[in-house]
């Protein structure tokens, strides 16, 4: 997937929200969807089970209009978090320009976070992409939960952020940190424009 097409003057960023099940990926997208003006967003496609678990994936296209002469589009995807949907995850990950890893801040979810992060790494490798080169940010979601249930951002950084990428604490349900995360990943992705290469 070509990130910047100079001949058709288009920029298309594919950003994938990755993370363990129930960490709040779809919630991130729903919040963004609610903040984007009608004219700028496409239909959000959400395939969810009856219990609101993402079955296949969510897809939210956002049209940012003309930027520096480029019609700029963001495509936000989520992957299903459950372990047994790995084939879908791998498929969605294909051609991603950037990845947001949404971690569940609850202390008891740490293992799931770690497992999902490893799963991300191996799925990227399947696509021939080194996790060290792909634009990646971490989001520590559910920071609004009682202190005793969650790990602090510093703790999570120690546990998960071994690449020392940008990390954002968030409360996706109320929107805190959602756009900061999106900005963070966008900046990383767009900075790669200069190099003219895509994942």
């Amino acid at each position, binding site marked *: 997937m070509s990130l910047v097409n*100079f*001949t058709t*003057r288009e*920029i298309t960023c594919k950003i994938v929200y990755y993370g363990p099940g129930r960490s709040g990926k779809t919630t991130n997208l729903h919040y963004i969807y609610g*903040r984007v003006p009608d004219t700028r967003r496409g239909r959000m496609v959400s395939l969810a089970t009856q219990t609101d678990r993402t079955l296949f994936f969510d897809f939210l296209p956002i049209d940012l209009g003309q*930027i520096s*002469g*480029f019609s700029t589009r963001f495509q936000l995807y989520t992957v299903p978090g459950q372990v047994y949907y790995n084939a879908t995850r791998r498929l969605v990950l294909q051609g991603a320009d950037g990845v947001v890893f949404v971690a569940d801040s609850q202390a008891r979810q740490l293992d799931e976070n770690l497992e999902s992060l490893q799963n991300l790494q191996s799925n990227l490798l399947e696509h021939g992409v080194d996790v060290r080169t792909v634009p990646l940010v971490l989001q520590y979601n559910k920071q609004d939960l009682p202190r005793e249930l969650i790990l602090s951002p510093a703790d999570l950084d120690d546990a998960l952020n071994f690449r020392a990428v940008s990390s954002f604490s968030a409360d996706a349900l109320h929107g805190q940190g*959602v756009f900061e995360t999106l900005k963070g990943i966008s900046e990383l992705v767009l900075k790669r424009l200069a190099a003219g290469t895509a994942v």
Partner: protein
Amino acid sequence: MTSALNAKYTFDTFVVGAANRLAVTAGRTVAENPGSAYNPLFVYSGSGLGKTHLLMAIGDAAKKLAPALNIEYLTLDEYVEAFHASVAAGQGDAFRRRFQNVDVLLVDDVQFLTNRKEMQSELLRLTEALQVAGHQIVLTSDRPPPEIADLDERLISRLSGGLVVDMGLPDYETRVAILRRKAEERGVRFQPGVLETVAQAEFGNVRELMGALNRLVAFQAVNDTSINAETVKQILGLAPAAAAAAEPAPAPRAAGDEFGEFLADVTVTVGKAVEAWRARVGEAVLRWEGEGYRTQRLEALLQQDAPAAVDEAIAGFAQDVERLKELEAEVAELDPQAAGDSVFRDPERLDDAEKAAAKVRDGAAPPPGPSAAFTLESYAVGPSNQVAVSAARAVVEHPGKKYNPLVLVGKSGLGKTHLLHAIGLELARGRRAVVACLSTQAFIDELIAAIDGNRVDWWRARYRRATALLLDDIHLLAGKERTQEELFNLFNLLQDKDRQLVFTAPAHPNTLSGLEERIVSRLEGGLVAELKEPDRDVKRAVLERMLVQQNVSPEPALVDYLADRPADSVRALVGVVQRVVGAAAAQDVPLTAGLAREVLEGQAPRDTRRSSGFRTSGLVVSSLGGIKSREKMVWDWIDVTDRVIEELR
């Protein structure tokens, strides 16, 4: 009353973008097939987006394709004015007739029909009449028909019945292209990035964009310094913040507008990331690709991190494309089929294209030229041919301008061919002149061979290159329908380009049988100059020249005697001279008037008859080269009057 079409407003000068592509395509179609494609064509757009330009371009293109079409452009106001004037003069019917006879009617600004009931019914009537007659009508407005206030339902349905297209605001690329073209037209150069900055600004229409450009041009001229992208914003009063200037339609920034902030953020990042050079290369790729050229050289540039001399690379590419265009145009004239070759579309294969063009050039041998033997200096002039010769000189001096075509008529042997070739030789002296000078028979034979070899296109191209076409004995075309057809087309083509045409014929074209009327009328359209029987001056000049050629001193007595002999053509005279020269050579005596008289009037000396090897076979070795059978040449027989005198003796 009616505005003339402005020659500046053509399709060539119309910058096409996504917003107006449909309208332009429809306009072109209408210009190419007036009355049959979309009728009426209704174009609407906001002010200053090119309605008038498009309308005039349709008129211009239609006129170029079919010059005979009656094309009328006017604004609705002018139409109303004309109507009122004619009603006031009691000439309402004349007004209607005038517009019903227009083949392509272009009406601008029909939104002013609001509250003009009588004009609406008049326009309805006219539209109906034009449609029935198969005449084209194109209208423009600033809004679609149903939105024009107080418009008659019937008129709405009538106007919407053809094709209704709109033209929107040009997108960024189109704006840059428009600015580039306008700056180029004015011969103004700006620093890189200046025009792009202007294009990024929000202007409601193209006119405002032009206004901005004008300000920049004026500023640069006054201050004698070149403007850079930063000063542009100051001059045009644009917001200096990069985010605001770069985003044509920023989302409303309410407090806590997270998306707006995000957008601003992304805009800044993209602005930093997309280097100007990439944008320029991208634009060039877009442009040339759009024209059908392969652009892998430029695309390769985009793959690099920081290529050196980007602008030089783009300029070099443009230069190569220009060269390809030249080659293609040249080849298209010589061999239309070869011009379709893909090498003419690939700047990477310029060398191949040059080779292909050279091949075509070699293949297209120039058409047969004039014979060097017939010069204008050696053409004897006298009262009998003065008109023709001075016409010939005028043609040589002003080829294609004065007498086109020039038709030389006269009986056989009066020097038509000589004069034709002489004109050809003179015309061939011109720079880059390609003079086709041949007999009509050869012309016919070539065409037959071309048809046979399935290369009529090539044959046509060969003659279309000619800067002058001279055909001897045009009457031989009689009954050759295909050749007449080809000549007719060639004639028109060459005459349109002011290229000289010269023909010879034994008699006035309108007396020649078997020629199509259209050919005859075209031949008569120029100058028909007659060559008469040679007068004494001409004969003397011819004799003197021939005698000198034969190494005989042109004694006045001999010349006088021969010139006084009756001869109805120069060729007959040549025969006479050959006879006397031959006789003198056979007897091995100098040629004198007496000998000539003896040969021509009296008994030829006995021992010369068939005794000399020179004439034993009945063949005369012509001094002009070639062998001719004497027996077959009527002009060598003794003149009838001579014979009568002889018999009387």
